[in-house]
C-alpha cells in the first residue's frame, strides 16, 4: 500500500476501490465494459437524473432540442475536462484552465487578430486561441517539470496572471467578434449537431484513444502511478510531464475559441471557475486525484451529469439557492453511489 499511504485514507480507499472496480475488465479502458462496469454508478446517476427530468418536465426535457442544449452547455467544460484528465492521471493538477480560456478568448478577438483574420482567413482566430492555450500550458509544464514548482502553486499563479493579462489586453472591454467566416463556422451544425458538440465529441474520442491505446497514454499512467519507477525504466518523466500540461493548455485554448464562437465575444471573465467544474467532473468520473489511473469515459459522464443537472433545475424552476444546495448534495451522493457499487463488484470478484 505504501504509495497510497501518502494520500488521505479516503483517497487511498477510493484508490483501492477504483482499482478493484477496474480489475473487472482485463483490457482496461475497454469502452463499453468501462462505461457499464466501473462507471455503472455514474450511468445510474445520469439515468436517474434523466428520468427525473422526464417525469417533471415531460417532452420539454425529452426533446432533441433540449438534448442538444445540454450537450452545448457541456461542450466547453467537457473539452477542458479531457485535458484535465490527462494532467490528473499524470499525477498533477491544473487550476489555470479557466483563466486560460478567458485569455485565449480575449487574445483571439483583439482588433489585431480580427483584422488579420479578415485579411487572411478566419482560421487565424482559431490558431491564435490554440496558440495562447498551448503557450500557457507550456509555461505551466516547464515550471512544474523543470522548475520543480508544485503543480497546484504553478497553475494557481497562472490562474491569477492569465486573468490579469486578459483584462489588460481587453482593457476591460468585451471584444465583439465580427469575422463572419469564423462565426458561420461556429454557428454551423453539420448533420443537425452544433459544431461545439462535434468538437466535444472529437476531443473526447481523440482523448480516449490517446489515453488507452497509445504509448503517450501508457507513459501518462506510468508517470502518474510511480514517477520514480517510470524514470528508472527509461521514461523521460520531466519531458512527459511538460507535454501533459501543454496538452491541457491546448484544450483550454480550444475551450477559449469555443467560448468565442458561443458568445461571439472575448471577455476576461470567460471561463471563470471552470477549473473547479472540470476537476469535479474528472474526479467524479473516477480518475484518481493522486494519479496513475484515468478514465475518459468517466470524465465525459461526469461532465454530462453536471450539465444535465443544471438543465433539469431550470426546467423545474427551483429557487435559485435551493439549486446550489441540491447540486452539492447530488455530487456527494453520486460519489458515494459510485463507491458502493464498486465495492459491490469487488465483493463479486
Amino acid at each position, binding site marked *: 500500500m505504501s504509495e497510497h499511504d501518502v494520500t488521505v485514507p479516503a483517497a487511498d480507499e477510493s484508490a483501492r476501490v477504483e482499482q478493484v472496480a477496474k480489475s473487472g475488465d482485463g483490457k482496461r479502458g475497454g469502452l463499453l465494459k468501462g462505461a457499464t462496469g466501473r462507471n455503472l454508478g455514474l450511468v445510474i446517476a445520469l439515468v436517474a437524473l434523466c428520468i427525473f427530468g422526464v417525469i417533471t418536465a415531460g417532452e420539454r426535457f425529452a426533446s432533441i432540442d433540449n438534448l442538444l442544449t445540454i450537450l452545448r452547455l457541456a461542450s466547453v467544460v467537457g473539452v477542458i475536462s479531457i485535458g484535465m484528465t490527462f494532467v490528473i492521471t499524470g499525477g498533477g493538477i491544473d487550476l489555470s484552465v479557466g483563466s486560460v480560456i478567458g485569455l485565449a478568448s480575449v487574445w483571439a478577438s483583439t482588433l489585431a487578430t480580427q483584422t488579420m483574420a479578415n485579411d487572411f482567413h478566419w482560421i487565424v482566430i482559431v490558431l491564435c486561441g490554440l496558440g495562447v492555450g498551448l503557450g500557457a500550458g507550456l509555461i505551466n509544464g516547464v515550471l512544474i517539470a523543470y522548475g520543480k514548482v508544485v503543480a497546484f502553486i504553478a497553475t494557481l499563479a497562472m490562474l491569477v496572471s492569465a486573468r490579469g493579462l486578459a483584462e489588460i489586453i481587453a482593457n476591460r472591454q468585451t471584444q465583439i467578434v465580427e469575422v463572419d467566416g469564423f462565426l458561420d463556422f461556429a454557428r454551423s451544425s453539420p448533420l443537425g449537431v452544433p459544431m461545439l458538440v462535434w468538437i466535444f465529441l472529437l476531443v473526447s474520442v481523440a482523448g480516449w484513444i490517446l489515453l488507452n491505446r497509445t504509448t503517450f497514454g501508457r507513459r501518462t499512467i506510468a508517470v502518474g502511478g510511480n514517477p520514480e*519507477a517510470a524514470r528508472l525504466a527509461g521514461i523521460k518523466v520531466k519531458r512527459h510531464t511538460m507535454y501533459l500540461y501543454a496538452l491541457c493548455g491546448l484544450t483550454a485554448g480550444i475551450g477559449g475559441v469555443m467560448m468565442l464562437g458561443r458568445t461571439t465575444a472575448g471577455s476576461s471573465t470567460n471561463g471563470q471557475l471552470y477549473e473547479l467544474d472540470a476537476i469535479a467532473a474528472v474526479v467524479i468520473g473516477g480518475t484518481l486525484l493522486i494519479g496513475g489511473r484515468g478514465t475518459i469515459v468517466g470524465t465525459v459522464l461526469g461532465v454530462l451529469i453536471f450539465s444535465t443537472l443544471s438543465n433539469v433545475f431550470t426546467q423545474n424552476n427551483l429557487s435559485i439557492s435551493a439549486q446550489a444546495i441540491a447540486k452539492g448534495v447530488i455530487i456527494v451522493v453520486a460519489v458515494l453511489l459510485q463507491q458502493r457499487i464498486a465495492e459491490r463488484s469487488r465483493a463479486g470478484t
Partner: protein
Amino acid sequence: MVNEDPPLLQMRGIVKQFPGARALDGVDLEIRAGEVHCLLGQNGAGKSTLIKVLAGAHQPTEGEILVDGTPVTITHPVAGLKLGIATMYQELDVVDGLSVAENIYLGHELATGGFSQRRAATANTRALLTRLGHGDMSPNREVGRLSAAGKQIVSMARALSHDARVIVMDEPSAVLDAEEVTNLFRVVRELTASGVAVVYISHRLDEIRQIGDRITVLKDGRTVATGLPVAQTPTAELIKLMTGRNVEYAIPARDTVAADAATVLKVDGLALRGSFSDVSFEVRAGEVVGLAGLVGSGRTEILETVFGARKATAGTVQVSEKKLRAGSVSDAVTAGIGLCPEERKSQGLILDEPVYRNITLSTFARNANASFLDEGAERKVAREQIQSLDVRPSDPDRSARTLSGGNQQKVLLARWLVHGCRVLLLDEPTRGVDVGARAEIYGLIADLAAQGAAVVVVSSDIPEVIGLSDRVLVISEGRVVHDGPASGIDEHRVLDLVMEGSAA
C-alpha cells in the same frame, strides 16, 4: 528451554480471505514464553499476513487466538499491544516527517494533558537506542533522513518501547548488514532471557540456525510443520518443507570469463559529491562484478550514478566504448543498461498496474506501431517471461501490488530480460527473497552472464556477493578499498578491508 504451563500464545485454524486471494488457509502456531520461534515460508506463503492477524492489523476470516490458554479477539492494533504483542512490520512502518523519538512513541505518546513531554521521550529514546547499540543516533533526527537500516532500527526501538511479552519481527535483517544483525541477535537473546517470546521471520536460514529455538513452516497459507527443534532439523528438510521440492541452495558454479572477452561497461573516476568519489572499474562480457560493503557505504548511489539516475559530479561511464551522458537514464537504457533498484516497491514497480505492463514498462514502445500500443504482443512477451521465471501467480493481469517480494523481484528482472540488456545492475537482488526464488535468481544471473551480459551485483550478504561474482570491489565510505578476483577473498577479509577503509 522447555516449560510446563500453557503456551503463551496459540493460533488455531487461522484463515484469511482477501478479495481475490486466500492468504491464509488454516494456520496453527504455538509460542512459548522465552523462546525464539522462527516462521519460515516462501514468498507469499502467508507469514506477514499471519503476524498481521496476530497484531490485530487484519481480522481473521476464521480461526481462534488464545493467550495463556484463554481465547481473545484482537480487533485493532491497540488491542494487540494491550495483550503484550508488539510487532516490527515488514514494510517499514515509520513516519518520515517525525523525529526518531516521536516515531518510537507514536500512538503511546508520553504526554501530560495532550502536551508532549519531549524531554522524557528523548531520554527514554536514547536509552532504547543505546540498548540497541546505537546510542549515537540522535532521538531528534528526522526519520526521513535515515537510511533503510536506520529506519529498521527505529521500528525495533519502538517494539521494545512497549514492554511486550511477544515481539514479532518480520524480516528485520532484510535491510541490515552483518554487524547490525549481530547487534539484533544480542538484543533478542536479552529479551528471551527475560522471558519474552520472539517470533522471528527471515529468509536467511543461517540466521535461523544462530538464533532460533523452534520452527514453524508455512506453505501456500497452510502450516506444513510446527514446533520443529532448530538443532535437530537439517536445512535440506526445511527447504523441502518450504518449497515442496529439493532446491540446490548453493550458488551455481560458473566457468570463468574468457580472457579475450570484450569490456562492456567502463566506469572511470566516477564521483557523486557527498556520497562517493573516484570509483573506477570495468566489467567484461559474461563477467559478474560484486560490490561489497556495509549499509550506507554508497553502493546504491554508485549503481544509480552509473545508471544516470543521479548526476555524477565527476568521471565517465562507457558502454562498449560509447560514452554516456551524465544523469540521463534514458541514455543508459538505450545503451543497454538495466537497473533493478534497491527499493522494489517504490522505485521499481507501478503497484496498481497489471504485471504485464510492469514487465513491458521499458519496452512497450517497441511493440507499438506508430505509437499505437499492441497489448497483444505485450501480453505475449510478458507471458513468456512469467513462464521462464516462474512468476507466481502467473496471471499477467494481476496488479503487481498483490505479488510477494520474491515475485516482484522476478517481474523487475523480467523487464530487463525483455529489454535485452548488455549491462545489468542489481541492487540487493535477493533482499526479502525466499530460498527457492533466491536459487532461481542465482541461476538467472549465471545464465545472463553466460549469454554475455555484464552484471554488477550489490548485496549486503557478503558470502552471496563473493559467491556470485568473478571479481569483488569492496566499498567503504564511498571509496573502493579493494578490487580483486572473488576467489582470493572471504567474508572476514572483506570486513577487515572495510574497517581499514574507514580507519584510513
